[in-house]
């Protein structure tokens, strides 16, 4: 079956790939572009570890048909750091011991970024709500929530 050409912006860089029909964005990112930061978790939209930003909006890449991002921007964890410098959220996660096994961390960080991009000073309840689609198997929610609040209170969350 013929592959379909697909062009979009990935972490600020134009990419052009060919995808099989029905390929989801997670597979396109990991296997065709080599961005391994979005993780495969459940494939059902239940765990959030594949979260990405599409045109700045939080989406689940495992449930996104790759062809639907043609001409759009896709941002993953790989793109949120500023060169060699960690994003303030990444620094806050490290400072607050917010990663255990680390599997949920990319999705947590992307979900937290989606929140802080639109609400730089969220309440604790708003942080809980924002990461409610992301499952942490280590049950480390408290340090994750604290890290997001720390990043926000530090005024270091960038727009």
């Amino acid at each position, binding site marked *: 079956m013929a592959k379909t050409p697909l062009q979009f912006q990935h972490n600020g860089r134009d990419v052009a790939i060919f995808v099989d029909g*029905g390929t989801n964005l997670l597979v396109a990112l990991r296997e065709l572009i080599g961005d391994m930061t979005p993780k495969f978790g459940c494939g059902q939209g239940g765990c959030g570890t594949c979260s990405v930003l599409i045109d700045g*909006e939080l989406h*689940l890449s495992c449930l996104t048909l790759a062809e639907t991002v043609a001409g759009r921007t896709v941002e993953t964890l790989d793109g949120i750091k500023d060169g060699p410098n960690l994003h303030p959220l990444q620094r806050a996660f490290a400072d607050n011991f917010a990663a255990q096994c680390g599997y949920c961390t990319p999705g947590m960080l992307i979900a937290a970024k989606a929140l802080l991009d639109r609400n730089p000073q969220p309440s604790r309840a708003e942080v809980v709500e924002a990461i409610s*689609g992301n499952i942490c198997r280590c049950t480390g929610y408290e340090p994750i929530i604290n890290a997001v609040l720390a990043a926000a209170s530090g005024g270091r969350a960038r727009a």
Partner: protein
Amino acid sequence: MPVTVKTFTSTNEAAAALSSDRSARYLGGGTLVMRALNEGDISISTVIRASDQAMTRIVTSGARIVLGAGVTFARILAERDLAFLHAPARSIGGPAVRNMGTVGGNLFAPVPYGDFTVAMLALDAVVSVQGGLGGREIGIEEFLQSRDRQTGVLVLAISFAKPGSADAFRYRKIARIKPKGGAVITLAAHLPVNGSRIVGARVALGSMAPTPIRARAAERALEGRPLDTSTINAAAAAAVEGTSPGDNALASAWYRREIVGVHLRRLLSGQE
């Protein structure tokens, strides 16, 4: 197995393609169809999309509210005129799912999902569909009863009369995991009042049958009566009548039958 993706600019063309291919599925937000593809559902060989802007329109200006089938739950949450629907919209998934999931797709969501459809059933919504031979409108209850046979039609929109007052529409989702989690039971009620008496009561239940259903016995207990303690008790006692819940990881059928009346009593009496 690769599938063929067909994107149409008009809903007519999309509907024709959908109705002519038994292995075709319409892709709305992706939360159902992409999940099926990820799980290797070989019954899907074609994915149909429509970029028609009519699919994402929201009309709140008239007596009837119209939600395009492609309207997402995040869009509903952004609409001040749809404040009465914010509770059902917010009860679905996490933020990413609400950015993706659509009103039309929710009509097809199996138990324990489909919470928004419970709200639509309580509001006596009408579903606009387009088949290969043209469009028609179908009551949501009839639509749900024949849901398994509706895969070849394209849902265009859902419409319903706006509740007369903020207090007339009530919604509650019972979940073990908050703020996100599958439903143990979902309840919605529309209770228009004429004078002090309820006229045209509708009570809808989710996860109490394979599709959302009306609690007709509870509706009969409410109809024509004031919403006082004895009426609420009568409706709560009748809530389980006609239900056929199933067992799943969230709750057993027995548990659902035991608690549906308790939660209907709380919904009707305004308890948290």
